C-alpha cells in the first residue's frame, strides 16, 4: 500500500493569496493512499526541504507530491530532496498550484477546488509511479558553434582553449559578423575592427577549431551529448587549398555592379569576391547568382587570370556529417531596412539611411574611407537628423520591443559626425534615452554636453524630399508639443533590431523554441538565460534578443562554460523517461505483435526489430519491437500509436495517465 506525503507550498503569498492552502492540505490528507499532508510557507527553502526529508523518514513515505510552482521550476529541487529522504526521486511529482492555479484565478472556492483536484490527480499519478534509474550515455566532446560573429568567435575560443574540439559553421564567406562592419564602438569609441580581427585570426589558427565558412547547418538529430549534424558546404567555386588570396581574380572580374553586403549596399562588389580586406579566410567565393559564367555561360576570366589555378566552376555543394556533443547557436540578428518605413519614403530617398549604413560611412574601411558623405551626391551633410526608435516600440509595425542598442549607437553616430564636422548640426529625435550600462549614460551626456548634439523629444511623423533637402516633420513634446520642421541633408534611422529572416527555420532544424518575433527562447528568462529547452543547445548573442557587444560576449562565454561543464565527464546521465516494450511469460514473451509499424513513428529511430530466440536451439520464437533506451527521448508517440498497449512510457505510463483522468473527473469542478 502506498504511503504518500503531500506538501503544499504557500510560495510566500503567491499561492496562499488565492488558494486556501490549509484546506488543500486537509483534503489531501483524506485522499486514499495519503499518509501525511502539510502546508508550509516556502517548500523550496532549506527548512522546507528538510521538512520533506524528515517527513519521509518519520512517516515511512513511499512517494511524495509537492503542490507548488510549475514542475519546470523546482521539480529537480524536490526530487533531490526526495532522494535525500531515501526514496527514488521519480516517486516525487509536482502539482502545479502557482502558474496554473493561484496566478490565473481569483480567490474563490472554485480556485481552491481546482487546487485540490490537481493535487488528487498527482497523488493518483504517484501511487502508480515506479522507481526509475537514470540512464548513462557517452558524450562526444566536440562542440558545434553556429555563426561566426563575435558571439560565435568568443564561444568557440573559450571552448577550444579549454581543450575541446570545436567546429564553427558560418554561412557567409568570412567570419566577423556585424561587428566587423562597425566603425567605432560605444562607449569607448575604440575601433571595432581593431579589437575584432585578432580574434578572427585566432579562430582560424586555433588547432582545436575547424572552421567552415560559406556553410550552413542542414539538419540536427540526436540529443545532448550525441548530436548528428549535417552541414552543407556551399560550393565556393574556388579551391581553398590552391588559392593564395592574391586578389587578381576580383580585380579582373567584369561583373562589378553588385550591391556590396558588407558596405550595407553603399558600394559595389564583383561576382568573385572576398567580403572585406581582413576577411577570414581571405579567399574569395563566386556569387553564382551574379556571375556571368554561371548565368550566361560565358566569361571565365577569373579562371584565366588565376595564377594558382584555383578556380573550379564544377565544384558542387558538399554535405558532411559531424558528431557533436553540444551546440552553441550564435546566428545573430538583422535590422529593418529603410523600405520598412512608408512615412519616411519607403526607402526611396537615397539620403535616408539606416544605422548600419551610417557605420559604413563612418568607417575608415568603408566606401567613403570614413568621410561622412551623403549617398545621393557625395556631399558632406550640414544637417543630419537621427531618428531613434525607428520601428522599435512600434506596435503598429509589429515590433513592440525596445531594440536596446539604438540609443547608444545613435549617440555614437551623432558624436562621430560632430567630431568629423564641428560646424555641422546633428539632431536626434528620441522618445526616451535608455542608456543603462557601464559608462553608457555618461556617453550620451557627452554627446549632448560636449559635442553639442541637439536632442529633441518627439517622434517624426513624415519625411519628404524637396529641392535636394529632406523635410523632416517632427515635434518637440518638451516645448508644448511645438511642431518642428527641419530641412536636413541626411537622415539616419535607428531601425529596429529583428531576428534573421531564416531564424524560424534554423530553430525548427534545431528543435528549439522561439518567440513570436522569431528570437530564440532561453530555457528560463532569469535562471537559465543561455540554455534552450533542448538540452545541449545553448544560445549566444543577438539571436536570443537584441544585445550590445559586452552582453553578447558575456553570454557567449557563459554558453561556452555550460558546454565545458557538460564535457567535463565522459558519460552523462539522462532522465529515464523512455518507452519500454513489455515482457511476459512464455510462450507469449511480450504482447507485442511484431507488426513493427511503430518503427516509422519514432522520430529518433530508437525502435528496432528484436528476435526472441530459444536459448538452446537458437530458433526464433518471436519477432517484436525493442526500444533503444539510449536513443529514446521519451516523447511517447509510439505508446499512443501501439494498438494493444505493448509499449509504455516510464513516468507517463498508461496507468498513470488514465488514473489522472479518472481522478480529475467524477466530481464537480
Amino acid at each position, binding site marked *: 500500500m502506498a504511503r504518500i506525503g503531500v506538501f503544499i507550498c504557500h510560495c510566500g503569498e503567491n499561492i496562499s493569496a488565492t488558494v486556501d492552502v490549509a484546506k488543500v492540505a486537509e483534503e489531501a490528507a483524506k485522499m486514499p493512499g495519503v499518509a501525511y499532508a502539510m502546508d508550509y510557507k516556502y517548500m523550496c527553502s532549506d527548512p522546507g526541504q528538510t521538512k520533506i526529508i524528515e517527513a519521509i523518514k518519520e512517516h515511512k513515505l513511499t512517494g511524495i507530491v509537492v503542490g507548488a510552482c510549475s514542475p519546470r521550476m523546482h521539480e529537480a529541487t524536490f526530487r533531490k530532496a526526495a532522494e535525500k529522504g531515501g526514496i527514488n526521486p521519480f516517486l516525487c511529482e509536482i502539482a502545479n498550484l502557482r502558474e496554473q492555479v493561484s496566478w490565473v484565478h481569483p480567490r474563490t472556492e472554485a480556485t481552491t477546488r481546482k487546487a485540490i483536484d490537481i493535487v488528487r490527480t498527482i497523488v493518483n499519478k504517484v501511487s502508480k509511479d515506479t522507481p526509475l534509474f537514470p540512464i548513462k550515455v557517452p558524450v562526444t566532446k566536440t562542440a558545434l558553434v553556429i555563426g561566426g560573429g563575435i558571439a560565435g568567435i568568443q564561444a568557440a575560443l573559450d571552448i577550444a582553449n579549454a581543450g575541446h574540439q570545436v567546429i564553427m559553421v558560418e554561412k557567409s564567406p568570412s567570419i566577423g559578423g556585424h561587428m566587423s562592419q562597425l566603425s567605432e564602438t560605444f562607449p569607448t569609441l575604440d575601433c571595432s575592427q581593431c579589437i575584432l580581427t585578432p580574434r578572427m585570426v585566432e579562430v582560424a589558427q586555433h588547432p582545436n577549431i575547424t572552421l567552415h565558412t560559406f556553410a550552413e547547418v542542414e539538419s540536427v538529430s540526436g540529443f545532448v551529448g550525441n548530436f548528428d549534424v549535417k552541414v552543407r558546404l556551399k560550393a565556393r567555386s574556388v579551391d581553398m587549398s590552391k588559392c593564395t588570396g592574391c586578389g587578381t581574380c576580383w580585380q579582373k572580374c567584369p561583373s562589378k555592379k553588385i550591391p556590396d553586403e558588407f558596405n550595407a549596399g553603399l558600394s559595389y562588389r564583383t561576382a568573385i569576391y572576398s567580403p572585406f580586406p581582413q576577411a577570414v579566410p581571405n579567399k574569395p567565393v563566386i556569387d553564382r547568382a551574379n556571375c556571368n559564367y554561371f548565368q550566361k555561360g560565358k566569361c571565365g576570366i577569373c579562371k584565366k587570370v588565376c595564377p594558382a589555378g584555383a578556380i573550379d566552376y564544377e565544384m558542387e555543394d558538399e554535405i558532411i556529417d559531424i558528431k557533436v556533443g553540444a551546440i552553441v547557436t550564435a546566428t545573430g540578428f538583422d535590422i529593418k531596412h529603410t523600405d520598412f518605413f512608408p512615412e519616411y519614403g519607403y526607402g526611396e530617398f537615397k539620403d535616408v539611411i539606416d544605422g548600419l549604413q551610417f557605420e559604413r560611412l563612418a568607417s575608415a574601411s568603408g566606401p567613403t574611407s570614413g568621410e561622412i558623405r551623403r549617398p545621393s551626391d557625395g556631399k558632406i551633410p550640414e544637417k543630419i537628423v537621427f531618428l531613434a526608435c525607428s520601428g522599435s516600440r512600434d506596435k503598429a509595425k509589429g515590433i513592440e520591443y525596445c531594440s536596446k542598442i539604438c540609443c547608444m549607437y545613435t549617440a555614437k553616430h551623432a558624436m562621430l559626425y560632430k567630431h568629423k564636422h564641428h560646424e555641422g548640426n546633428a539632431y536626434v529625435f528620441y522618445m526616451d534615452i535608455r542608456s543603462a550600462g557601464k559608462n553608457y549614460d555618461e556617453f550620451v551626456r557627452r554627446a549632448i554636453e560636449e559635442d553639442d548634439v541637439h536632442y529633441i523629444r518627439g517622434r517624426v511623423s513624415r519625411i519628404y524630399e524637396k529641392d535636394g533637402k529632406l523635410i523632416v516633420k517632427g515635434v518637440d513634446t518638451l516645448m*508644448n508639443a511645438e511642431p518642428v520642421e527641419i530641412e536636413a541633408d541626411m537622415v539616419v534611422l535607428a531601425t529596429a533590431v529583428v531576428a534573421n529572416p531564416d531564424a524560424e527555420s534554423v530553430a525548427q532544424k534545431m528543435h528549439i523554441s522561439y518567440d513570436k518575433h522569431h528570437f530564440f527562447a532561453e530555457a528560463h528568462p532569469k535562471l537559465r538565460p543561455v540554455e534552450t529547452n533542448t538540452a545541449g543547445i545553448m544560445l549566444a548573442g543577438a539571436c536570443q534578443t537584441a544585445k550590445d557587444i559586452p552582453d553578447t560576449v558575456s553570454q557567449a562565454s557563459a554558453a561556452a562554460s555550460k558546454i565545458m561543464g557538460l564535457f567535463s565527464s565522459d558519460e552523462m546521465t539522462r532522465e529515464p523517461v523512455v518507452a519500454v516494450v513489455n515482457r511476459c511469460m512464455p510462450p507469449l514473451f511480450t504482447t507485442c505483435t511484431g507488426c513493427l509499424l511503430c518503427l516509422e513513428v519514432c522520430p529518433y529511430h530508437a525502435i528496432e526489430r528484436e528476435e526472441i530466440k530459444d536459448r538452446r536451439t537458437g530458433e526464433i520464437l518471436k519477432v517484436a519491437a525493442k526500444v533503444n533506451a539510449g536513443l529514446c527521448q521519451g516523447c511517447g508517440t509510439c505508446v499512443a500509436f501501439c494498438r494493444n498497449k505493448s509499449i509504455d512510457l516510464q513516468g507517463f505510463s498508461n496507468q498513470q495517465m488514465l488514473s489522472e483522468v479518472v481522478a480529475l473527473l467524477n466530481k464537480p469542478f
Partner: protein
Amino acid sequence: MIICSIQLIFFCIKRQLNRFNIEIVHESIETKPGNSLKSRLEESVGVIVSHCYQCGKCTAGCPLNEDMDIKPNQVLRMLQAELPGYEDKLLSSLSIWLCLACDTCYSRCPQEVKLSQVMDFLRQESVRQNKVNPKAKDILSFHKAFLETIEKNGKLNEVWLTLNYKLKTLNMIQDVQKAPSMFFKGKLNPIPSRIQHVKEMEKIFQRISENEGGDK
C-alpha cells in the same frame, strides 16, 4: 426664380425660429470616479488612452498642428492624467473642433490610438455639456445646419445648407460673390432636392434622439 429664393429664405428663418433640437441635449455631468471623461470615452468608443506613450508623432503630422490650442498628443495626455481642470479645458478647447478627421495621426500612430474617434467623442461631449469654445461656434453651426438640412430633405442641397448656415452665423457676405457663377455653371440648384421618403429620415433622427434620452 426670385420668388423661389425668397420663399426659401423665409422658410429658413421660420425654421431657425422654432428650431427643432436634434439629438443635442445640454446637461452637466458630475465627474465621479469611474465616470470620468476617460472612462466614458473608453466605454463608448473603445479607445484606450493609456496606450499612448506621448511620442508626439500625431502632433508632428497633424495638418493643423500650428492652429491647435491643445496639440493632439496633449489631448491624450490630459485624458491620461485626469488632473483637476483638465476636463473643462479639453471640452472647451478649439482643437477638438479643428480636427479634420483626416486620420493622419492614426495612420502613423505606433500605438494605434484612434485619435479621430477621441476627437469625435470630445466634440459630442462638449456640445452635451455646453462647453463649446466660442471660436468654434461657426464650425458647430455648420455641422448643425448640415444635419438639419438632411433631416428635412434626406440629402444635401448646397444652397439650402449655405443659407441655413448663414442664418445661424449671420455671416451673410461670405461667398456671396461665388453664388452667381456657381449658379450659371449649373452647380447650384435652388430647388431643394429631396429624397422620396423624407419621413423615414425624420424617424431615424427621432429614434436616435429618443434612444439617447433613454440611455442617460
